[in-house]
């Protein structure tokens, strides 16, 4: 065979070989990419299922405790109150009358507390009147008798699409509001919501000491930051986002939730 042809064919074969190897590498990398994506998707799916199960069981437990408190503890306390009221106070001496009166007051207070806790744990208002009313009711209840000036500006166009989602949103608002009351020393609080297409945007604003996004990211991994971890889990479950920012006048928490995604799925 002529050497010139041998050289030309040799060059062509070698280049073809190099190109083939490159194509094989690229094809293999694509396969690896697809596999990695599938594994990631599966992991995310499993994580979501775990979070969903945890959130559901937490909600069931809340309901169970709320019902026990309301039906059993509440009933016993009401019965105790009836018995206490059955005592004729006029036959008691002055000291016993005072004790009787104090006992009645404390019993009334504990009945109110138990009822309050039971309502907080249960989501009756949420189920009957919807998310907006439940938030308004909760904000009013927790800020009553405090120095905090609370304002709610919720979008009434919002209609419940998925009751489970509403419970999660409500629980997040409860947790955030409780944190603000406990730690922020705020005197002003505003909660507003807007419905944009399929997205619900909630804004919680207060003028106390709040969290920045960095602090939130740090705290939610701590043992004591269980509430924040729960918020993050619910956000993952809802496929939403939460963002903490510090402004000139106070702290802002933006929650973005796609409210129709779960239904579609």
């Amino acid at each position, binding site marked *: 065979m002529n050497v*010139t042809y041998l050289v030309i064919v040799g060059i062509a074969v070698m280049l073809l070989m190099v190109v083939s190897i490159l194509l*094989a590498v690229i094809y293999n990398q694509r396969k690896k990419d697809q596999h990695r994506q599938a594994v990631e998707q599966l992991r995310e799916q499993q994580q979501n299922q775990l979070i969903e199960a945890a959130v559901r069981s937490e909600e069931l437990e809340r309901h169970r405790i709320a019902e026990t408190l309301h039906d059993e503890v509440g009933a016993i306390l009401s019965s105790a109150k009836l018995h206490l009221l059955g005592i004729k106070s006029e036959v008691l001496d002055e000291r016993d009358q005072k004790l009787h009166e104090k006992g009645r007051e404390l019993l009334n207070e504990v009945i109110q507390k138990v009822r309050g806790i039971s309502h907080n744990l249960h989501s009756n208002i949420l189920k009957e009147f919807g998310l907006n009313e439940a938030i308004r009711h909760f904000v009013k209840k927790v800020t009553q008798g405090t120095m905090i000036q609370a304002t709610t500006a919720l979008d009434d166009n919002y209609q419940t699409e998925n009751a489970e989602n509403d419970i999660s949103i409500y629980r997040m608002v409860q947790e955030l509001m409780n944190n603000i009351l406990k730690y922020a020393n705020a005197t002003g609080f505003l909660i507003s919501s807007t419905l944009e297409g399929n997205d619900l945007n909630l804004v919680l604003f207060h003028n106390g000491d709040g969290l920045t996004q960095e602090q939130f990211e740090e705290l939610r991994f701590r043992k004591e930051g269980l509430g924040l971890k729960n918020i993050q889990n619910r956000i993952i479950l809802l496929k939403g986002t939460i963002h903490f920012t510090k402004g000139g006048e106070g702290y802002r928490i933006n929650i973005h939730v796609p409210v129709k995604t779960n239904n579609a799925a």
Partner: protein
Amino acid sequence: MNYIIHKILDWSEVWALLIPMAILLWKNPKATYLKPVRLFIIIFLVINLGIDLIAEFKSKWGITPQDFLWNNNFLYNIGSIIRLLLFSWFFILLEQRFMHRIKLFIPFIFLLFVIINFSFFEPFIPQGDMEGFSSRLLATESALLLFYCLQYFIFLIIEDKHTHIKTAPGFWVVTGLSIYVGANFFIYLFYEYLFVKTINFAVTIWDVHNIVFIIFCIFIAIQFSIENKKQTI
């Protein structure tokens, strides 16, 4: 026109190196594994400049065998040895845990081959018109570099760790090198023979060598540029 194109291709061994050199000076990639490639650019700029200047003097002023440096072929031999040593170092620095011992042995085996070849079988310093150009040396070097490139790609295929191919360390350099040595293996292997038997074809086929060298230099420049981006991320 043909003369100009031919001249541009003749000098491509020098000007093509200025492309990665410019990116090197502009972006200054600091990855350790690129150190041999940086040295390759600098050393080969000097060697190739010598090769082309000797060739130019020879064609213009008719340098005779009695003159000093009348034949540039020994520079190709020196370049071949340096190229293999530098790219062996480059592949070792990539730290791919694959055929590691073989990669460490290759430069020593190659040096042994060089000593034996030039001590007993071929002259290192040119004595005739084509003497000094060692097809055996350059083809062996190409084959060994091609082996390095193949093991690099095989490692990319079998490794478990996910790396994005375009940003995998050394990917562009190895791709450029594999095209360069892949195309040149047969050119080097038969070049002595072709130069004696069909000089016109030998001159034409050397243009292929120059074109793949330009491609190689462009790929090195891409690697320098990508490595700089990875640094800034």
